[in-house]
């Protein structure tokens, strides 16, 4: 029987902290067996989302954030800082541990497998996207999407952001890219090593169009049916609690 995944479009575009609380509440409830396999799509307004092991002080240009009214929120997964604006589409997949799609416990395999749906969706739109280990989707060596994830709470969790029509000029301002990273990649700036779906297609494209393409990619790639749904009362309650105790707090977002 074809498995049905719940499709959630719940977002708090102007509240990156609540967005991240929802992002954590879903995999926790999926792991408890209270919620089904879920794919969520969402947006943030100007926000830096920093990896859980990163130092905000080292990675973020605070002055530029103030000038551009960019918020900073820490996520619960590792990986690097990314810049979100409304031209950036976020997706998240939560599957219960042991799900046949990703039977192992290897994070690299999780990234590779659960990026496939997005890769396929982007290719259907005409973007020559390919997965690039460790956690990127690239087009001709330029990053169009980055992923992060975890195996915890009895869940396989994978999320990523896709640069659809983001303002790359702000991205270059608000993130400090360490010299060691640039030297390794032989490129001069963060702006030169990323691209957007709009630039690749040479036309205006909405995040909704990309979302629909990815839903199609997920269905064909994984042989599942994706059906619109909403969060449960428990998920909403947990998200509210995580917002209060974690994501709305400076000590979580700005330290170390």
């Amino acid at each position, binding site marked *: 029987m074809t498995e049905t995944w719940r499709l959630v479009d719940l977002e708090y575009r102007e509240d990156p902290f609540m967005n991240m609380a929802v992002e954590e509440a879903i995999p926790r409830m999926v792991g408890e067996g209270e919620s089904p396999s879920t794919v969520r799509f969402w947006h943030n307004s100007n926000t830096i989302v920093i*990896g*859980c*092991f*990163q*130092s905000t002080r*080292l990675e973020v240009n605070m002055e530029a954030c103030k000038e551009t009214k960019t918020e900073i929120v820490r996520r*619960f*997964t*590792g*990986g*690097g*800082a990314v810049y979100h604006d409304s031209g950036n589409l976020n997706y998240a997949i939560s599957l219960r541990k042991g799900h046949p799609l990703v039977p192992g*416990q*290897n*994070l*690299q395999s999780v*990234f590779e497998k659960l990026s496939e749906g997005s890769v396929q969706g982007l290719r259907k739109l005409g973007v020559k996207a390919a997965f690039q280990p*460790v*956690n990127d989707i690239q087009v001709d060596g330029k990053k169009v999407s980055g992923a*992060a*994830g*975890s*195996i*915890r709470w009895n869940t396989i969790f994978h999320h990523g952001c896709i640069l659809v029509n983001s303002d790359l000029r702000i991205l270059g301002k608000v993130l400090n890219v*360490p*010299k*060691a*990273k640039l*030297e*390794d990649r032989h490129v001069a700036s963060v702006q030169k090593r990323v691209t957007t779906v709009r630039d690749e297609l040479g036309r205006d494209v909405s995040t909704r169009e990309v979302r629909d393409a990815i839903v199609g990619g997920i269905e064909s790639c994984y042989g599942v049916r994706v059906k619109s749904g909403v969060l449960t009362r428990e998920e909403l309650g947990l998200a509210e609690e995580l917002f209060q105790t974690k994501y709305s707090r400076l000590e979580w977002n700005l330290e*170390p």
Partner: protein
Amino acid sequence: MSATKLEKLRSADYKAPGGKLVRIRLKEEQGEIRSVKITGDFFLVPEESLGKLEKMLEDAPLREPELRLLVDRFFRGTGAQGLGVSSDDFVKAILAAKEV
């Protein structure tokens, strides 16, 4: 001379080959690590284990054999999984920390 005067701050940004960035900020006193903060864009599962590694490194001599032993013991003991970073990368990053 007070103990704090002997303390040196060391730091390194170490890029794992083909992997991620490991940023070390540590306090050293007479060749030993007093405290260390490891940050970066790597992946480590379970995420909470990084604090355990930092704790294990406290008072360790800033020498390769001892560090290697400790970091290997951390991975074996916790069953932690690194991605974009290995046990060897953590050791090399710590040893690369220069006085600031």
